[in-house]
C-alpha cells in the first residue's frame, strides 16, 4: 500500500474517528475494548499494514462516531502510542496522541482477590505510577500492577 492510498483511505471517511498506529497484536484487543462488535456504525478494520514506526500496525475507522476522552483513555492501557484522528467532512480536524490519564476510575480490575473493590459494589480507582512500562497502583489495597497483569473490567 502506498502512502497516497493510505491517506485516501483515511480521508475517505466523511465523519468519524480513525484510530491509527495500533500495534498489530493489540488491534483486536482495542476492538474488544471499544465494544465495536456492538456498534452498528460502518467500521473498517485493517491489520498488518506497513508502518515506519511500528513495522506493522493496525488501523480502525469508525464512521459517524466520536469518543469522549474517558472512553479513549482505555486504549492507552493496551496501545499507549495509538493516534486518534477526528474526521469531519473528510478533513482531519484533530490529531491526538493518547496519553495515560493520572487516574483510572472504574476501568481496571484489581488482581488482588482480598481487595475491597472485588468484594463490594464499588468502582475501582488506580493511580498511574509509571507510563512505560505501565505500572498502576490500586488506591484501595495499594497493590501495584505491572502492565502484563492489567485486566479490564
Amino acid at each position, binding site marked *: 500500500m502506498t502512502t497516497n492510498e493510505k491517506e485516501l483511505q483515511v480521508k475517505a471517511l466523511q465523519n468519524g474517528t480513525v484510530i491509527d498506529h495500533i500495534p498489530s497484536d493489540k488491534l483486536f484487543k482495542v476492538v474488544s475494548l471499544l465494544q465495536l462488535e456492538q456498534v452498528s456504525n460502518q467500521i473498517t478494520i485493517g491489520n498488518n499494514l506497513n508502518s515506519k514506526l511500528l513495522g506493522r500496525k493496525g488501523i480502525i475507522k469508525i464512521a459517524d462516531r466520536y469518543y469522549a476522552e474517558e472512553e479513549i483513555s482505555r486504549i492507552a492501557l493496551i496501545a499507549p502510542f495509538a493516534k486518534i484522528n477526528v474526521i469531519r467532512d473528510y478533513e482531519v480536524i484533530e490529531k491526538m496522541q493518547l496519553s495515560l490519564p493520572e487516574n483510572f476510575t472504574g476501568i481496571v480490575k484489581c488482581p488482588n482477590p482480598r481487595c475491597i473493590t472485588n468484594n*463490594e459494589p464499588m468502582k475501582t480507582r488506580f493511580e498511574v505510577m509509571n507510563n512505560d512500562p505501565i505500572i498502576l497502583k490500586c488506591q484501595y489495597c495499594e497493590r*501495584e500492577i505491572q502492565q502484563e497483569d492489567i485486566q479490564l473490567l
Partner: protein
Amino acid sequence: MAGYSSFFVFLSKRSKNEPIHLTGMSTKSIVSITDYSKEQILHILDSAANFEANPNRTILSGKVAATLFFEPSTRTRLSFETAVNRLGGRVIGFSDASTSSFVKGETLNDTIRMVSNYADIIIMRHFLEGAARYASEVSSVPVINAGDGSNQHPSQTMLDLYSIRKTQGKLTNLKIAMVGDLKYGRTVHSLLMAMSHFAPEFYFIAPDELKMPDEYKLICREDGIPYTEITEFSTDIINEVDILYMTRVQKERFTDAMEYEKVKNVYTLRKDMLEGSRENLRILHPLPRVNEIDQDVDTSPKAYYFEQARNGLYARQAMICNALGMI
C-alpha cells in the same frame, strides 16, 4: 457544637505546662501512616506524651466511638476502647463480623453510612485490604484504620514511633534492625515509611523468601537512607543498633515447609545475644510473640515489647483526638 464545647473542656483541664496544640479544628480520617506529614507525626507524639502524663481526662465526654471489628483483634480493640473510655467517651460496636449485619450480606458502604449516623468517630478493623480507605470515603465522620487485611495499621506505627522516641530520646539518626518477615509484615513497611522522615540507617535481616520488597528499598535509595540486607542474624548487627525490631516468621508464608523448618529458629533472639549490645538498645515487637524472642529475654532491661504495647494507649488517645479535630 458538641465538638467545640468538648474542646474547651479540654483547654480548661490543661495543666499550665502542657502546650496547646492547634493544627486546625477539622476532622480527619487516618487510613495510613503516610496520611500524616512529619510535622503531624511529631504533633501526635507530643500529644501522646501529654496523655501518658495524664491519661484520664474527660475531653471525649459526650462523644461516641464505634469500634467495628470485622475481624477479631482483641489487643487492638481493647487498646482503642480503653483510649476512648479513659477520655470519658462511650463505645459502641462489635468485635466480630459474625455479630454484625455483614453475615446478612450488608455492604460495607451501608454499614458505615448507618454507623456514621450514630457515632462521632469510627474505628475499624477489616479483613479486606482497602476497606478502610473506602470506609473513609463513604463515612460522614472520621474513620481510623485499625488494620485492613495485610495493608495498613497506622496506630501500630504510631505506637512504634512513640516507643522509639521515648526510649531513645529522639527519632533522628537511629540505627534500626528489622528482623524476620520483612516481605509480608505490614508493621515493618509502615515503620520504614514513617522513619524515612528522620534519617535512619536500616539493617534488614530476613531469609531470602521474606526479604524486604524492592519498592521499600527503592524508597530508601530515593531518600538517601542507607540500608544493609543480611540473611544471618548475628551479634555483629545487634551490637551496632539502637532498635531491634523483631517480627514473627509465619509458617504459612512459606511455600516449602522444609524451608520454614530451616529458618524458623535462625531468627530467634536469645538473651546471651545481647551481651555486647549498646546500653540504649531496646527490643521492640508488635506482638503476639511466638518463638522469635526467647522468654528469658523478657527479664532484660532492653526488652521493651510489653511497654511498647502500653504506649499504644497513649498513641491511640492522641490519634482519636486528632481525628476528631480536638488537638
